[in-house]
């Protein structure tokens, strides 16, 4: 089963993007996720968390993330984030897995500039997404194709 990915080039930077539909209770909505094979974990961005109206108080804190730049980013854990993917046969696959989300209230407490910077980062698909869902990732930039293939 194949799930096509979007190849987007913004000012010379190539991003590989997966469209996904969140089926979290009260947080239905569209998300674009950027494939990041350098990230061990999948992280729902501050922007997408705000846009989907995620109820932050419902989730437990997880170990803050360390990345580029100063300080750490506070995150929460959604133990079973539920979502749908649209495969190349025009059918839906409904999946769930644990993901981290940016803890927007705590980021906001650290100042508006920190929140502004956090909202520039998109939702990232980490290696756990591929591993938990038995996906193989194929990228052919020269042929302009990219897709996930589910191993049954």
């Amino acid at each position, binding site marked *: 089963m194949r799930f096509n990915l*979007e*190849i*987007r*080039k*913004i*000012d*010379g*930077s190539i991003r590989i*993007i997966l*469209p996904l*539909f*969140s*089926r979290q209770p009260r*947080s*239905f*909505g*569209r998300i*674009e996720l*950027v494939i*990041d094979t*350098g*990230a061990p974990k999948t992280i729902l961005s*501050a*922007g*997408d968390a*705000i*846009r*989907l*109206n995620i109820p932050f108080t419902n989730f437990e804190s997880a170990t803050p993330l360390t*990345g*580029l730049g100063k300080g750490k980013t506070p995150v929460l854990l959604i133990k079973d984030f539920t979502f*749908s993917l*649209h495969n190349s046969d*025009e059918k*839906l696959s409904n999946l769930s897995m644990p993901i981290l989300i940016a803890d927007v209230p705590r980021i906001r407490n650290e100042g508006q500039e920190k*929140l*502004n910077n956090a*909202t*520039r*980062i*998109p939702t*990232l698909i980490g290696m756990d997404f591929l591993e938990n869902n038995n996906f193989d990732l194929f990228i052919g930039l020269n042929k302009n194709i990219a897709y996930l293939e589910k191993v049954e």
Partner: protein
Amino acid sequence: MTEQQIIIEFKELESDSNFISEKVEEFSQRYAKKFIAVKDRQVVAVGDNFEMLIEEVKQKGINPSQVLVQYIPAKDEIILY
């Protein structure tokens, strides 16, 4: 929401996602260092920051969960994650 409604949502999402990819060079010229919101292959809001953008989307009577948001970096800006 039924499976059929979600498939329709996906078609709109994929269409808007393709639209951003097709127009991204044009957007880089017009909207550098801004956030844009896209729905139905149209830019429905532009903001200097994310929260201003979402306010504008809401003021237009659009549910923020139904737009795609893209930050357009400046020419000399490379964002690493």
